[in-house]
C-alpha cells in the first residue's frame, strides 16, 4: 500500500465516481433536502459522520464475525440492523454528552438510517476487497463527494426558484434537468490523474 494509491482511491470516490451524480446512490435525500443551503450543510455533516462510523463498524463485523463464522449470506440483514441500531445509539449519546452537535445534526440522523448511501458504501467496501485503511480513505472520499454535490446543487436550486421557465417543467422536472447538467460537468473529470 502506498500514498499514491490512497490518493487515487480518494479522488476517484470524491469526483470521478461521485456517488450521487455518477452512481445514483442517495438520491432521495439529495432531492429531498437540497432546497435550502443550510439543510444541505446539516445533512452533509451528518452523512460524513455516520458514514465513516457505519463503514468502520460494518467492515469489522464482516471481517471478524461474518467471514470466520461462514455467515456471509446474512450480510444484507446484519448490515442494515447494525447501521440502524448504530444511528440510534449515536443519537442517544449525542443527546446526553454532545448537545451542541446534536442541535446541529440531530434531526438529520433518522433520515440517514434508510439512506441507501450508507448501506451502499458498506457493501462496496466489501465488494472492492479494501483493507481497513483503504476502506477509511474510500469512505471519506464518498462522503466528501456527497457533500460536494449536495451543497453545490442546493446553491443552484435556490436560484432556480426564481427562474422564469415553461410551466410544464416547473417544479421537479427542472430540478432533474439541472442535476443532468451537473452530472455532465462531473463527467468531464473522468480521466483526471489517469483515474477512471
Amino acid at each position, binding site marked *: 500500500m502506498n500514498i499514491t494509491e490512497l490518493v487515487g482511491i480518494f479522488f476517484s470516490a470524491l469526483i470521478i465516481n461521485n456517488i450521487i451524480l455518477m452512481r445514483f446512490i442517495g438520491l432521495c435525500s439529495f432531492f*429531498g*433536502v437540497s432546497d435550502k443551503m443550510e439543510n444541505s450543510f*446539516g445533512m452533509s455533516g451528518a452523512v460524513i459522520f455516520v458514514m465513516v462510523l457505519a463503514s468502520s463498524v460494518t467492515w469489522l463485523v464482516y471481517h471478524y464475525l461474518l467471514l470466520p463464522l461462514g455467515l456471509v449470506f446474512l450480510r444484507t440483514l446484519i448490515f442494515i440492523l447494525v447501521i440502524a441500531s448504530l444511528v440510534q445509539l449515536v443519537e442517544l449519546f449525542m443527546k446526553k454528552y454532545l448537545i451542541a452537535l446534536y442541535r446541529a445534526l440531530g*434531526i438529520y440522523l*433518522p433520515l440517514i438510517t*434508510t439512506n441507501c448511501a450508507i448501506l451502499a458504501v458498506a457493501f462496496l467496501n466489501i465488494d472492492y476487497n479494501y483493507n481497513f485503511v483503504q476502506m477509511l480513505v474510500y469512505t471519506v472520499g464518498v462522503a466528501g463527494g456527497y457533500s460536494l454535490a449536495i451543497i453545490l446543487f442546493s446553491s443552484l436550486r435556490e436560484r432556480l426558484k426564481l427562474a422564469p421557465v415553461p410551466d410544464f*417543467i416547473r417544479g421537479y422536472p427542472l430540478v432533474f434537468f439541472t442535476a443532468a*447538467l451537473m452530472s455532465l460537468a462531473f*463527467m468531464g473529470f473522468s480521466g483526471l490523474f489517469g483515474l477512471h
Partner: protein
Amino acid sequence: MSLIKILLNGIFTENPILMLMIGLCPTLACSGDAGSALGMGLAATFVLVCSNLLVSMIRRIVPSEIRIPVFIVIIATFVTITDYTMQAYFPQLATSLGVFLPLIVVNCIILARAEAFAYRNNLIRSFFDGLGMGLGFTLAIVLLGIMRETIGAGTIFGYPLNHFEPAAIMILPPGAFIGIGILISIWQIITKKKKEVSPCHNCALAKICYPEGKGEL
C-alpha cells in the same frame, strides 16, 4: 375501495416514481438498458408483494413501537432470497444490477407500503397493493429504460433498430436525469398535477423527520 382500484392506484394514481418520486436510486441507476430495468422492476415487485403479505399476516402480533425494525428484517430476508436466487439463475442480470440488488432493502417504496398500507390492511388488499405498486415501479423504470436504450444505444431489449444514429449521452449518467425529467414533465402534462412537494414527505420515515406541526426540516 375495491381491489381493482387498489391495483390501479399503485400503477397510476400514486405511481411511486412518477407521482411520489420515491425509490429514485434504482430507477436511475438500472435503466441504462430495458432488460436490466425489467429485471430490477420484477425483483422489487417480488420483494414488495412478499413483504406486504408477511407484514399484513403478522400485523396483529407486532407491537407498534418496534414495527419499523421488524419491517426491515422482513424486507432484508426477502431481498437476500432474491439476491441469491438471481445470482444462481440469472448471473448476467445480477452482475449488471450489481450493488443495487442488495440495496432493494433500502428502497423507500417497500418500507413505505409496509408502514402505510400492509400494517393496516388485510392479506388480500395488501397483496393487491403490493402488486399495484410493484407494477407501477416496473412500468416507470421500463419506460425510462426503453427511452434511454432507444435513444442512447439504438436498440430495444438488445434488438437493433436500423437507420438511427444513437446519442450516447442517454445511456451515460446525465441521460438518466434527463430521461426522468422528461418522463415526469410528460406525466405532469397528462395528470395536470404539479409536484412541488419534496420526495422526503412521501418517505416511510416522514413522520420521524418531519415532526407534527413542523412543515419542513
